[in-house]
């Protein structure tokens, strides 16, 4: 029998104008930091924003934004993502609170479907989705379940990262998703990533410097806004907001 939960997902996100997944294939390139700061930046610009953390094995957006783990979940014909600094936030962390959560692929898939089926996002201008590294269940599921998904690729300027990003791009091109472009994080001022983007035929959205003040600022929204990362993100956001998306 068909999975009934999948039927309701389009209804749950029907008032979400843009659905953007932050992806890389590679770990540790800054997906979580950028997903969180992109959401924060959009909210500062007056947009209505949701942030969904789908890195179930290592959820971290709440650490970046300083969202308390003991937040209680409101139920109302589903679950309503709590609001923090103007961001509607949803993460399994709100339920498991630091416990280890060793989920296999089929569990991840099941949990994503359940979460998308019961969460009522309401009207949003942007839903930002943080994803884990790899091209496994999380990515495959949002690609098949979220209509009109856009992907925003994050990388660092390293051969090791670019080889993996290149594999990811092969996949994204196969399934015909909207690739917004690539962000170079922890830039070293070289043109390695810009060149890569040109070769792959994707938009180079800009670079973000390594900011050693980030570590101290983690969990403190005001301090985060003062980092040079937030500054670069504002510039990048103006490009992203300007794009017209056809679904």
């Amino acid at each position, binding site marked *: 029998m*068909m999975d009934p939960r999948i039927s309701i997902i389009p209804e749950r996100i029907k008032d979400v104008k843009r659905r953007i997944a932050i992806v890389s294939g590679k770990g540790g390139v800054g997906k979580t930091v950028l997903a969180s700061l992109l959401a924060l930046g959009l909210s500062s610009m007056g947009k209505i924003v949701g942030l969904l953390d789908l890195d179930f094995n290592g959820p971290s957006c709440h650490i970046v934004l300083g969202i308390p783990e003991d937040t209680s979940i409101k139920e109302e*014909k589903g*679950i309503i993502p709590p609001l923090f600094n103007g961001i509607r936030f949803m993460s399994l962390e709100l339920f498991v609170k630091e416990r280890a959560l060793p989920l296999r692929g089929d569990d991840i898939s099941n949990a994503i479907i359940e979460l998308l089926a019961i969460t009522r996002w309401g009207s949003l201008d942007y839903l930002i989705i943080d994803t884990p590294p790899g091209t496994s269940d999380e990515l495959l599921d949002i690609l098949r379940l979220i209509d009109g998904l856009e992907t925003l690729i994050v990388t660092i300027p390293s051969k090791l990262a670019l080889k993996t990003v290149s594999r990811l791009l092969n996949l994204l091109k196969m399934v015909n998703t909207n690739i917004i472009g690539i962000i170079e994080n922890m830039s070293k001022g070289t043109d390695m990533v810009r060149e890569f983007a040109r070769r792959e035929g994707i938009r180079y959205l800009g670079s973000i410097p390594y900011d050693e003040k980030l570590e101290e600022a983690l969990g403190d929204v005001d301090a985060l806004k003062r980092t040079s990362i937030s500054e670069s993100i504002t510039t990048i956001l103006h490009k992203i907001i300007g794009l017209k998306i056809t679904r």
Partner: protein
Amino acid sequence: MLNLPFVIEILRMVHEWALAESIVRAVLDIMRERKLKTVLEVKIAIGQLQQIEIDIFRDALKEISEGTILKETKFSIEEEEAEFKCRNCGYTWKFSEIKESIKEDEAEAIHFIPELAHAIIRCPRCGSPDFIVVRGRGVRIVSLRGIT
């Protein structure tokens, strides 16, 4: 939303509503796909692990289907016992055997997302969290009887 009876106010508050909505929507999707005129009966299994409030779920199904062409449809609900099998040592056990040891907030987490059981339940024999929920996970449609 004024003047609704009290029981309905409560059922709006719980997330059972969202799951009932998914059932109704799925049945409407299946009707369209298979070109059914009427659906006489939908059999639904509710896995014990998710600890759904069955009365609330049934009331939600009723209220949601009321406004659709499913208002005459019979929704039969059966509970499904939850069973686990350890991938590490092969041991199998039932939810009923360990239910007592689960705290209230843990049960609440599993109620929302049954996979959170992997953060809470461990194999009674070897202690591994690497188990399969063999049956009784959550809500699913078992069968559907309709007329084309």
